[in-house]
């Protein structure tokens, strides 16, 4: 039971910070280290969150702009669909890109305000297969203890981009993939698109539990 609580908290938190990792990519010739990339980006995000001159919608817009401009959202989309990506037609793919982006914005963006008074400390990092890199951080909270959040990065056109957020040992991409896989298994790409559209229209309210 305790494990459930621990893990359930990790994901929302991780995604709230997702725009962080994807945001800043330095254009300099000698790019920043992955650790610097994460640290700098986290600080920029926290700056936006703490900016009292911006209302909630403006903050979301600002963070989304960062994300769009500097991340490889298409790769994230492919990872989240995994092998099922092949089942999607071209038009379903572009539709998924749109709906999935809105889903992240509607469901996770809602909660960004909670994270304004927190701080990220980079604790370490390690190279991964095929040039990827994981930056390990600690999210320092005012109450409730620290949380371990890792960021998986990949190099694209000589810059680091964010691929995944791993909160307390739970990969966001893997978790979303499991959920999407289940829906794809029941009704294919059209069903998944429909579920996400409904979810977005509901403004992120919980869906009823699917019957088995």
């Amino acid at each position, binding site marked *: 039971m305790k494990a459930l609580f*621990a*893990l359930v908290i990790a994901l929302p938190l991780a995604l709230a910070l997702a725009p962080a990792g994807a945001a800043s990519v330095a254009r300099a010739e000698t790019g920043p280290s992955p650790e610097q990339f994460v640290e700098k980006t986290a600080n920029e995000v926290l700056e936006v969150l703490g900016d009292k001159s911006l209302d909630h919608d403006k903050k979301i817009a600002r963070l989304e702009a960062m994300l769009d401009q500097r991340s490889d959202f298409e790769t994230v989309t492919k990872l989240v669909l995994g092998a099922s990506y092949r089942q999607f037609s071209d038009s379903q793919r572009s539709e998924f890109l749109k709906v999935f982006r809105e889903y992240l914005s509607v469901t996770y963006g809602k909660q960004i305000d909670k994270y304004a008074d927190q701080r990220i400390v980079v604790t370490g990092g390690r190279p*991964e297969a095929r040039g990827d890199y994981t930056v390990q951080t600690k999210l320092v909270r005012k109450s409730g203890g620290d949380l371990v959040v890792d960021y998986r990065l990949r190099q694209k056109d000589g810059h680091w981009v964010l691929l995944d957020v791993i909160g307390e040992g739970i990969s966001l991409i893997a978790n979303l993939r499991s959920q*999407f896989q289940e829906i794809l298994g029941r009704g294919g790409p059209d069903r998944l698109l429909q579920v996400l559209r409904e979810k977005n229209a509901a403004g992120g309210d*919980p*869906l009823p539990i699917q019957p088995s």
Partner: protein
Amino acid sequence: MTTAKRPERQRNRTPVTLVLAIAIALALAAPLASASAQPESDPLEKINRPIFRFNDGLDRWVLEPVATGYDYVMPERAQTWVENFFTNARFPIVFANCLLQGKLDEAAASVGRFVVNSTVGVGGFGDPATYLKVPAPDEDFGQTLGKWGLRPGAYLMLPLLGPSDLRDGIGMGIDGVTRVWPFFVDTWVPVVTTGFQYLNLRSLYLERIRDSRTQSVDFYVFVRDAYLQRRQSLIDDRIGNTDDRVPSASDNDLYFPDPNKE
């Protein structure tokens, strides 16, 4: 101890035997359910989902409202004290499983923690050990079995107890026995304390669980995947571990999906 006491002690064993019985029953039922096209990790989905719906409903209608009231009444600091106390009381389990996994440093750290927190921390309500930067190992017998190479087996959704798997169900049973003290008190004592422990814990995660329900498109799968991922990370000691020798998750399929594979 008089003989009259004995039936009492027998009855106290119920939670353990119950968990084991459920685990074994479900294990036997597994082949029956696996004929359908369920994911490999969840052959019992058809049984698990209704139990999950029951747990989820109970949480929404009873536990969450009660925990909300409790959260309103209890100062945050007191909630942390209670949580600290129960974490400290898990010492025998943590210590034993550190040893079983050959982690002598962690075993020593857990002893240090227990001594400091039980004395300076006034019976475990305070947590000076964390302030002193003593590591906080988190081990249980399910993790030990995983370390020994046992696979998780079928995913289980246990009534009231929540997500588990065959390996962790066995682990929970064994850890329950090593708690020892419940065998020496009346049945209602461990029931009430465990209930109180869960209530306090639930009150600390009101917002997070609400958020998770909101964010997921399939809350059942969200919980299942998060549980299985988290347990594997704990077994691998990957969480917050900056030691380079610790391997990352076996993630080739996740981060490098094969475009030619269906």
